[in-house]
């Protein structure tokens, strides 16, 4: 990331930031399809603990990921007030259950930093980059890593 790339808006990325387990995370806004309120999920047998279940999103079956459980963060928030961010990743769609959606941020690409290598942190592998906005550290989520592993459950 050199200064040559500093072309203001052209290289900036728009992010949707949200809070989960007391931390600030964000995803590329282009992968967000919609944001919706929490709904009662139908739990799936033999599913990993972070898979909350599936909900009906206008006729399609949408798997819901409890992001705080996925990231190994503290849970225990009131689930009724949770928000589901519906994200698209290639051909797959999933709902990320978060505490609250905060803001839309435009971050210049050069302000993205690679996260330091800390082996002890379980959620580290889910963070693709870090940035600072108003003194707060925003983690950029690696959606691919967060998605439920496909086919893993096959017997």
């Amino acid at each position: 990331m050199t200064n040559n790339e500093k072309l203001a808006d052209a290289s900036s990325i728009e992010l949707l930031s949200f809070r989960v387990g007391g931390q600030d995370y964000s995803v590329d806004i282009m992968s967000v399809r919609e944001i919706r309120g929490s709904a009662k999920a139908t739990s799936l047998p033999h599913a990993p603990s972070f898979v909350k279940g599936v909900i009906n999103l206008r006729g399609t079956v949408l798997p819901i990921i409890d992001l705080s459980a996925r990231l190994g963060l503290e849970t225990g928030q009131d689930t009724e007030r949770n928000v589901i961010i519906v994200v698209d990743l290639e051909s797959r769609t999933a709902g990320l259950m978060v505490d609250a959606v905060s803001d839309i941020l435009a971050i210049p690409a050069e302000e993205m930093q690679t996260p330091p290598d800390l082996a002890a942190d379980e959620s580290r592998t889910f963070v693709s980059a870090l940035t600072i906005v108003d003194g707060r550290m925003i983690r950029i989520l690696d959606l691919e890593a967060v998605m439920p592993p496909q086919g893993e459950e096959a017997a």
Partner: protein
Amino acid sequence: MSDPMAEIRASFFIECEELLESLQDGLISMENGDTDSETINVVFRAVHSIKGGAGAFGLDDLVKFAHRFETAMDEVRAGRFTPDSDAIRLFFCCADLLGDLVRAARDDITIPHNTTAPVLNELDRLVGCEDDVEEELDFTPAILSLDMGDTQGLPDITGLPPLSDAPILETDVSVTAPLPSAPKGFSIHFKPETSLYASGNEPLYLLRALRDLGDLVVTCNTQRVPTLNTLDPDDGYLSWHLKVLTEEPIEVVREVFEFVDGLCALDITPLSASSYDPIFSDSTDQVDLQTTLIDVSEPPVAPPQIEAPVENAAQEAVQPEPPQKDDIPPTETPEITQDTQKKQPSAPAKTTSTPTQPRATVRVDLERVDRLVNLVGELVINQAMLSQSVAEAGLPPNSPVSTGLEEFLQLTRDIQESVMMIRAQPIKSLFQRMGRIVRESSASVGKQVRLHTLGENTEVDKTVIERLADPLTHMIRNAVDHGLESPEKREAAGKTCEGSVTMTAQHRSGRILIEISDDGAGINRARVREKAIEKNLITEEMQLSDSDIDSLLFMPGFSTASEISNLSGRGVGMDVVKSSIQSLGGRITISSVEGKGTTFSISLPLTLAVLDGMVVRVGGETLVVPLNAILETLTLTDDDLKALGPETHVVQIRGGFVPLLDLGAELGYRSPQDSYVGRTVLLIGQEDGNRAALAVDAIEDQRQVVIKGLEGSYGRVPGIAAATILGDGQIALILDPTDLVSQATGKTKKRNAPVPIAG
């Protein structure tokens, strides 16, 4: 509109598939001893039409091959060559290659010549007609390339250039002076349909081709031509009355119109003296010619009126006056009168009357159908929601709303069924592909095998057909390679040396049942057992029933063939077949009688989109159990329930014992209960005859549900087939009873270790 040529090309390939299918049909009837000329004609025509179309698109390889094949078939048709079983096998081979070439042409792949050459040489040797080949090879492309010239549309109406050609024709014709002494020939009534122009044919070339046969009198009928302001440039208004004086037999005349078969109303009759006389007096001819030339110089639409008599024609005079047919519907092949069956040229006329004649069809983009299917699925969900809210509103059951809703429900079901029918296709195409597999695989292992098919008109969902192809191919190869013995062994066992593989398809209680059976040696269970022990799939001490041993064949990495052949025996096998059948919601079972043969039965759901299910509650969750898996429901009493071992129970039902499974515990929703007395259980029956009793908390409803796949959005869940959306908008999981039972722990008693509970 996109490139019209590409569209025509695409439809040509679709037609080719249909033609190949009828070709296969014809060959199969020939194989079964049908020497009827109709059958041979069907075969001939199929090849011929493919050749014709291929020529139009300049697919030279295809044309060449089809031509040689056609020539051979022509010999058969003419009765000069009577095919024996070897020949028919060769024809099958040719048909397969023809199919390959068609597909190669479609996908722009070149098939090396050395694949077709041996077969062609064989063909020539067999039929002995190489001379014809050379001669006709010149002719064919000539005609065809003419077709190619004007694929753009209807040049004779929309543009002047082609019309400027017309006078040339007339002048040419006029050169051939009428000979009064030549009354033999044909009277042809030719009325092109619009589709004739749309497919790129040009009547002018047909007329020219006729002229080459002998003198030609052309009268154009212009009565239908409207005034310019009402004229539709895409429509054809002209028809022609032609008199050709020729010595050629009717076949040759007929051949001229071969490529516009079905695109025009065509009527060919031999000239009788009476019909001939008035036209062939020289003076009138000349006059007519004059008018023609004048006509042509008029606006494009104006019909050329040409009359030019032609010389000679003695031969056909002997022919009795055949019955005259009037207007023939355009979709039917033109009917031509002929004296004897043998002389019948490529007589498709006959095929129209056979029962296999396809009904009128529409080709629809599969995507559109799928969208419709999805919409109907949504309709069903909506209807369920509506029913639920009506029920919640507490309206009396005989209120107009309720009865209206009842009718709505009926309609929804009907619509759904009809929509599903659109996707359904006869399984025939799949069976025909298998015919080829049998031929190829039997040839490569040196066995004589005949494939019998039954119920090939059974309709199955298109997706199912597509996804069945691979597993069936594998099973057919297995049957040929492993199932059937070598001819020597068969004879020693007192069987005919020709082995037989039978494929049947039928509807049975809401499912499709496909069976593949061979009359081979059956499964050598001792050998299977030995092999399984050798491969560490089972241990020496294990007690296995016959069906258990048969099921070993489905274990991954199992293969019994002592020698690995080209076809099978690499250990990638029946387990893959089994899993692909299962992914279609099907089951596969095997049954075998030593010395008599082996039968594989595949049972598949009729559709992949809806199912009738029973809605049950267990552990606070709502689940749907496919209705066709439920034999009965019952409430457990103390007497029914028997403990078996430390953790399991069996249920005694009418003298039989069935394992008791707690659905909630199996799915991890809750721990096993203290007592199951008074519980509702569903008795689940499976294709293999095994039964199980599933304990649930309550039965809520019985309804049709729309299947929503889980695998696309999430992945496979053990014991769960799919999901659906209930009337209240909640998602309910659809159980896969067989999968659940096969993976069940059967724990129905609490032990110290708690069962983990899922998310």
